[in-house]
């Protein structure tokens, strides 16, 4: 083993030990599996404290430069810390848009002043960030965003509506895609990108109740909201390019994220554990041949997802369709989770009709909520149907639909 690898293993073990020792006690509510499930101040503050604690311990922002609150370590260290967190199944890191999107963007393209201003407060979760790309009428068609930004002296005046803003009502800043020019030939060329403050007059974030009954998003209205012109990121008209760059961070196609640990993995192991005490036809569920067969199908699929993620990093094994694994990862994983969670509920028998809040519900209704919440993954960031289009066109070279 190389010295480097030894160091890494030691570090991973250290993080694991810390997590084991410091993992917070059961807060009495279902912990969010993703950052889109933070529906109350109580949950928010719980996770804000936890992120701060992990940051103070030195386990997020490892690749960011020391002068901005990071540690200047290679990517492998952050991956090791993230792995350790996933392994210990600690609560997620809260400030996802800051840690994974805005932060890396500022780090890559921001001025020194911007870096000073924003980065450390992202790591400490003092400033929560949100994202304003989607609009009510153009869910899948980001390039068609109509929210306007009109230059007026030293300000831009923003008008329009964004939707699916996670933390819209808790955020200090939004990464905002808005139209500075409505008359360009290509719709993309009229867009600009802003690091917009949310605490200015004219910004209203109205919580959206989710299918689960809980909250987690807002619809965000801009009514002549003035933001300083200095908030513009890049040049006017480059907004689409900056946004696409930002999406690359989301898709993990590029490094620089302060952590990847923004969701709690839900595994077949969890499912098997959850249904351990369930019976079917008077027998333990796992004695039922058809249940077994279905579970094995899911195990095969889960394993293939893990293996494919590894294989995507080995170019020699991706020669036929070079972008296939990278582009299909989201589709495959989110659809797998949808089916797996749906199946998990079906295994619960009568208990499957109980919901979060019922004392008889299996794991407090975890699987019901997990199934419902998973639609944010099969819909958000490009629906599964759009993902299939992308793969068909960009991997197989099929004509546009």
């Amino acid at each position, binding site marked *: 083993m190389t010295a480097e690898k030894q160091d890494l293993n030691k570090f991973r073990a250290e993080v694991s030990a810390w997590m084991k020792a410091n993992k917070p006690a059961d807060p009495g509510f279902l912990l969010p599996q993703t950052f889109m499930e933070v529906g109350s101040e109580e949950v928010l503050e719980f996770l804000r404290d936890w992120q701060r604690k992990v940051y103070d311990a030195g386990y997020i922002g490892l690749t960011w430069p020391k002068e901005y609150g990071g540690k200047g370590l290679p990517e492998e260290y952050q991956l090791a810390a993230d792995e350790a967190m996933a392994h210990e199944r600690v609560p997620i890191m809260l400030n996802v848009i800051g840690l994974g999107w805005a932060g890396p963007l500022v780090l890559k393209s921001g001025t020194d002043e911007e870096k000073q201003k924003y980065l450390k407060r992202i790591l400490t979760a003092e400033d929560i960030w949100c994202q304003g790309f989607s609009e009510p009428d153009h869910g899948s*068609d980001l390039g068609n965003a109509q929210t306007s930004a009109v230059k007026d002296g030293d300000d831009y005046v923003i008008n329009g509506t964004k939707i699916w803003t996670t933390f819209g009502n808790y955020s200090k800043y939004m990464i905002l895609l808005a139209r500075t020019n409505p008359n360009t030939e290509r719709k993309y060329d009229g867009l600009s990108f802003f690091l917009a403050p949310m605490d200015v007059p004219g910004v209203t974030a109205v919580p959206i109740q989710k299918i689960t009954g809980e909250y987690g998003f807002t619809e965000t209205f801009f009514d002549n909201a003035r933001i300083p012109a200095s908030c513009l990121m890049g040049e006017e008209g480059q907004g689409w390019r900056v946004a696409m760059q930002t999406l690359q961070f989301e898709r993990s196609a590029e490094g620089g994220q302060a952590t990847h640990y923004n969701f709690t993995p839900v595994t077949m192991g969890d499912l098997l554990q959850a249904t351990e005490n369930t019976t079917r036809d008077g027998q333990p569920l796992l004695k039922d041949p058809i249940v077994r067969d279905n579970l094995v199908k899911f195990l095969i699929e889960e394993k293939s997802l893990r293996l494919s993620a590894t294989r995507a990093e080995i170019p020699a094994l991706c020669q036929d369709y070079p972008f296939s694994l990278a582009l299909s990862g989201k589709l495959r994983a989110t659809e797998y989770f949808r089916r797996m969670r749906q199946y998990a509920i079906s295994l619960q028998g009568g208990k499957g009709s109980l919901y979060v809040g019922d004392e*008889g519900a299996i794991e407090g209704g975890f699987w019901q909520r997990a199934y419902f919440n998973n639609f944010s993954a099969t819909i958000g960031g490009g629906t599964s149907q759009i993902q299939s289009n992308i793969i068909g066109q960009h991997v197989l070279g099929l004509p546009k639909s």
Partner: protein
Amino acid sequence: MTREMNYALSFDDEQAMIMKSAREFCKGKSSIQDVRELLGSDTGYDKKVWKAMVELGWPGIAIPESFGGIGLGIGSLVPLAESMGRYMLATPFFSATLAAQALLRGGTQSQKEEWLPQIADGLIATVALLDSEDWGADTINCTAVDAGDTLKLSGTKWLVGDAGVAELFVVSVKYQDKPSLVLVNAGQFPKSAIQRHTLIDETKRAFKVDFSGVEVEKSRLLDPALSESTIRDLMLIGALLTAAEATGTAAASLDNTVEYLKSRKQFNKLIGSYQALKHPTVDILNEMEAARSHLYHAATIMGDGPLSDDMEIACRMAKAQATEALLFAGDRDVQFHGGMGFTYECDAQLHIRRAQWSQQQFGDAYHHRKRLASLFFD
């Protein structure tokens, strides 16, 4: 497989009339706004609507005329249940109907005379059958033991529909080592014995009921010779009614999806023009239609006597097909609404939640297929 499959499916004018009036009634009384207003309510239903339903005679539609009903048999319940599902109309109809069927099929003459006319007149009754999450368990954990001249019950039942308002409970118990049914009045146990479930389907009301300590007279036992088959038949009738309701909701879900696909544009095209949405929507239609065919077949052959193998097959197939169709419809309803579908405001949530509910009532699809396999292959 030497068994000859029964493919009977017919429909008379009376049934056509019931179907038509059921649809009109439910449509008129249960707009989606009405449904949503009731979600947070205590009882989950509108008393005025229930009263109107009673006036139409629906709670007695399958009760013989000799016991104060209309005597149109179980077949008439299928179009009613389907329409209720279609408009997500909630009332204690299913609970009361199952209780009436329990009495009709398993009660003594005097019990029938005492209770069936009352149920036909709107008395809310219900059945308490489930001891655990496992619809396939054939043991009954709740017990009745002799205590002098009375019976003393113990044990807790799950998912007892409308227990909060029911005045009469038909409870399955183990008595003298045999499956038995016993009648319990609401007044015979404290309110604290009833605990409302938090259900995934917010239009429904079901309760955990602890019958421990309840004492009833022996005359409240249903006919011991019939109890076992009555319990079996109740489970099948429950499955059939759930199937009918689920099929109605699948159609509601389909309509909700189609409406959106016809009006929402993305990339300057109506999204319904995309085959990725259109074709699965057609599949939903087809699965729903298959469920309806099974349902109307069941409605054709069901009778008041003990269920035959053909009837059992019909009920189980209808349940398996209908709840799978609704699971598929509800899931796609959410997905195809995109971001909107992810909101509580979108009606897709009502359908996907109903799907999870229906799936688990009276046994899921696999439960029924397993029993069908035995009928066909053993």
